[in-house]
């Protein structure tokens, strides 16, 4: 093959990134050829983000080498990487919400004549960039007024500004509809044909099957292998990614549906949920699937009283509880695990013990005369820590110093200090390692088999598919369908999601 003679477009030689106490990337050998789509596949924390941030110049390597056309290069800044033709579209938006689309597209590289800003040229350039990609977006619109998908398109347009030979796309379809995603794939195909090398991060199997040429699997900061996309399949990839067979990660949970715990009828909310109805019974795990922004988080935020309900009824254990506040829900026996542990779940400066005791302070731990019952608090939290398999020496450390997996265990621990009839887990395993995930899944199994109802809301499709007895699929704020037992699978879920989005447009 000719690839053997000509050096690859971009390669890394034993690239390492060390942070105090953590090796984020270890001895990475990676190569990207011109005109290929190379998918990076791995769990959160496997090192994908670290690798691309170094390739994009955002993060200097601790050791090792990055080579462009076989020549070692130093990518000291994003700007320098851009000068070498390496451009990255990160998952976190790198747009300024208060500026217009046109201003964002030229940010840092404004068209000037004699130091003066050329506003007409600025708008024309934006128009050209967007038209060239087939994106229908007004260049004068403020970025903050755009939808997430439109912002993603602007982000991609910005990534393609100037001469680009390496394009890095980090989960670019996470917020796109199927049709927008297809447009992106057409674009990727065009770029590929013109010799651009594309590094593509995605978790979606269908997508990977559709566009990948080669796939590099990462786990725990190391490269496991690089495969030809045509010679592998989804199950093999997941096994490589997690290092275990699927059956080892996801426990088999017995399905013994009992009486309904939560009944929701025609619920609409001001945050975008429209006419959602669902039932959750004792002894079953119900999944709520859908892409970012489909309303799956918002549905339970509304039920739990975090966002106002505009129509519909909620019944809990047979009693109407529409519009109840979190305090009342806690008393009634609902535990809600928020999706973002740092923003909504934990007080990072408090110890694990204090965090887990927080929901108990005004109830169980309030003794005679309003005094705090500290001994009981210690006892209850120690018991909760045992249940979530949090090592006792972590109890007195500030939560902010713990690993992501241990933080998530503390978050679960907040719900284990007393019994609940319904556990609502929103993104239960975001950014945690496989070991912790298995432990948390086993906890879900125990809770369910002891007769509690569990709702798993997740953007991680395999997680929802493998844990749930029943799955509701959400799309555009509505429940697009319900799947049960054998019918649960990636394809039917995506069909439900996109089916309704296509019929809408």
């Amino acid at each position: 093959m000719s690839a053997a003679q000509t050096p690859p477009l971009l390669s890394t030689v034993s690239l390492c990134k060390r942070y105090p106490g953590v090796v984020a990337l270890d001895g990475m050998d990676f190569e990207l050829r011109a005109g290929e789509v190379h998918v990076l596949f791995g769990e959160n924390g496997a090192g994908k983000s670290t690798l691309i941030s170094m390739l994009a110049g955002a993060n200097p390597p601790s050791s090792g080498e990055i080579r462009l056309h076989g020549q070692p290069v130093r990518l000291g800044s994003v700007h320098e990487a851009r000068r070498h033709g390496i451009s990255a579209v990160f998952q976190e938006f790198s747009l300024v919400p208060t500026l217009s689309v046109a201003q964002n597209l030229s940010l840092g590289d404004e068209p000037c004549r004699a130091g003066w800003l050329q506003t007409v040229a600025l708008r024309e350039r934006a128009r050209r960039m967007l038209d060239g990609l087939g994106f229908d977006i007004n260049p004068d619109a403020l970025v903050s007024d755009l939808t997430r998908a439109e912002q993603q398109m602007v982000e991609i347009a910005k990534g393609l500004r100037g001469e680009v030979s390496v394009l890095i796309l980090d989960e670019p379809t996470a917020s796109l509809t199927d049709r927008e995603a297809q447009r992106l794939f057409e674009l990727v195909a065009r770029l590929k044909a013109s010799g651009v090398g594309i590094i593509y991060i995605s978790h979606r199997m269908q997508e990977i099957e559709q566009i990948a040429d080669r796939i590099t699997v990462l786990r725990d900061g190391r490269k496991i292998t690089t495969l030809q996309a045509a010679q592998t399949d989804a199950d093999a990839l997941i096994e490589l990614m997690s290092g275990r067979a699927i059956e080892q990660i996801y426990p088999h949970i017995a399905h013994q549906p009992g009486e309904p715990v939560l009944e929701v009828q025609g619920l609409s909310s001001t945050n975008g949920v429209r006419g959602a109805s669902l039932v959750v019974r004792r002894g079953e795990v119900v999944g709520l699937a859908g892409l970012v922004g489909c309303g799956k988080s918002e549905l339970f935020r509304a039920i739990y009283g975090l966002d106002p309900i505009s129509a519909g009824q909620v019944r809990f254990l047979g009693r109407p509880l529409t519009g109840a506040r979190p305090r009342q829900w806690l008393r009634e026996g609902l535990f809600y695990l928020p999706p973002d542990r740092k923003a909504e779940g934990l007080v990072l400066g408090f110890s694990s013990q204090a965090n887990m005791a927080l929901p108990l302070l005004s109830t169980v731990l309030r003794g005679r005369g309003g005094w705090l019952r500290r001994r009981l608090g210690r006892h209850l939290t120690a018991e909760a820590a045992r249940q979530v398999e949090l090592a006792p020496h972590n109890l007195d450390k500030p939560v902010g110093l713990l690993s992501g997996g241990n933080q998530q265990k503390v978050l679960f621990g907040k719900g284990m200090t007393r019994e609940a009839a319904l556990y609502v887990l929103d993104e239960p395993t975001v950014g945690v390692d496989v070991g912790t995930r298995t432990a948390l899944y086993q906890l879900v199994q125990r809770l369910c088999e002891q007769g509690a109802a569990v709702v798993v809301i997740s953007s991680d499709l395999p997680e929802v598919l493998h844990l749930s007895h029943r799955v509701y699929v959400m799309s555009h704020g509505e429940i697009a369908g319900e799947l049960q037992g054998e019918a649960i699978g990636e394809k039917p879920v995506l069909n439900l999601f996109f089916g309704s989005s296509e019929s809408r447009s």
Partner: protein
Amino acid sequence: MSTALSSHPTSRPPKGALASATAVLRRLFLQLGVLPFMLLGALLVFTCLSDQFLTSQNLVNLLRQSVYLILVSMGQMLALVTGGFDLSVGTVMAITSVVSALAMNALAASWPDALWLAVLGGCLVGVAAGLGVGLINGVGVAFIGVSPFIMTLGVQSIGFGLALFLTGGVPVSGLPAAFSDLFGFGSVLGVPVPIAVTAACVLGVLIVMTRLPLGTHLLAVGGNAKAAALSGIETRRVLMLAYLLCSGLSAISGLLLTARVETGEANLGGTVALESIAACVIAGVSLRGGSGRVPSVVLGAIFIGVVQNGMNLASVGSYLQMVVLGALLIVAVVADQLRHRLSASGRL
């Protein structure tokens, strides 16, 4: 009530002229913000309270009184759009005033024949001292990473203390008459010099914000600092410039006010930090950074001038004026939040 009405515009047909007038007002409010309404309200109230208010002489007077705040507010806006703020603007005015006065007197005593040179030298030294304060703020905020609140609060105290120390707390008088005659009371082509200088500065800031890349960069650093850095903008340099320009504009304001009062005083800018932030916030400059418009800020500063001038004419005491000013600031912020909520609900 109005929210509920407006979020279902199609559910009810408009009833008569009142409803359509409300709709027009609502649209104006959404587009322009609260400032035009407050300004109009203030003009109406003070015209009714005092028949001297709406005279051409008073209006020119009002403008002349407002220029000092306009200048500082311009500077404050530059700090605010980057997501910070500058509490030391008053100190810059004080330092500039005291240093320029001392320098001017010293130079005039050494070379009594070259008074103009003394005036020029004094002005330069004063502005340089003011810029020095901005330099310290910039280094602290941009390069060391101290929060703007703490940095400028600390510098405010240091600078004020130094200004008092330099003068022993006694105003510096006996400045060359030429200085006050020109910068305090003079006029060029019929335009009072302070107004002309301010107009030039406003034009300068307007050019920076809309016609130079720096303006976009200032907004970008405030709107999303990480995005700005990823786009290759030297965020530290931009922050540095913001605080330097802010102190420069405050120094010019301090110089003009020194000429007006004909003494170098350490107490010159006592309330200007609060007033300039109020002017900007009323003008819709976001405290989170990333947005702010020059013409609105000028109007915001003039609005505060109108309120002070009107209350003086209506013989409202200065203690009560402080109450009114604080209340207006809060009302403006609340109205701005209401506007955001209205426009958000209109979009859904």
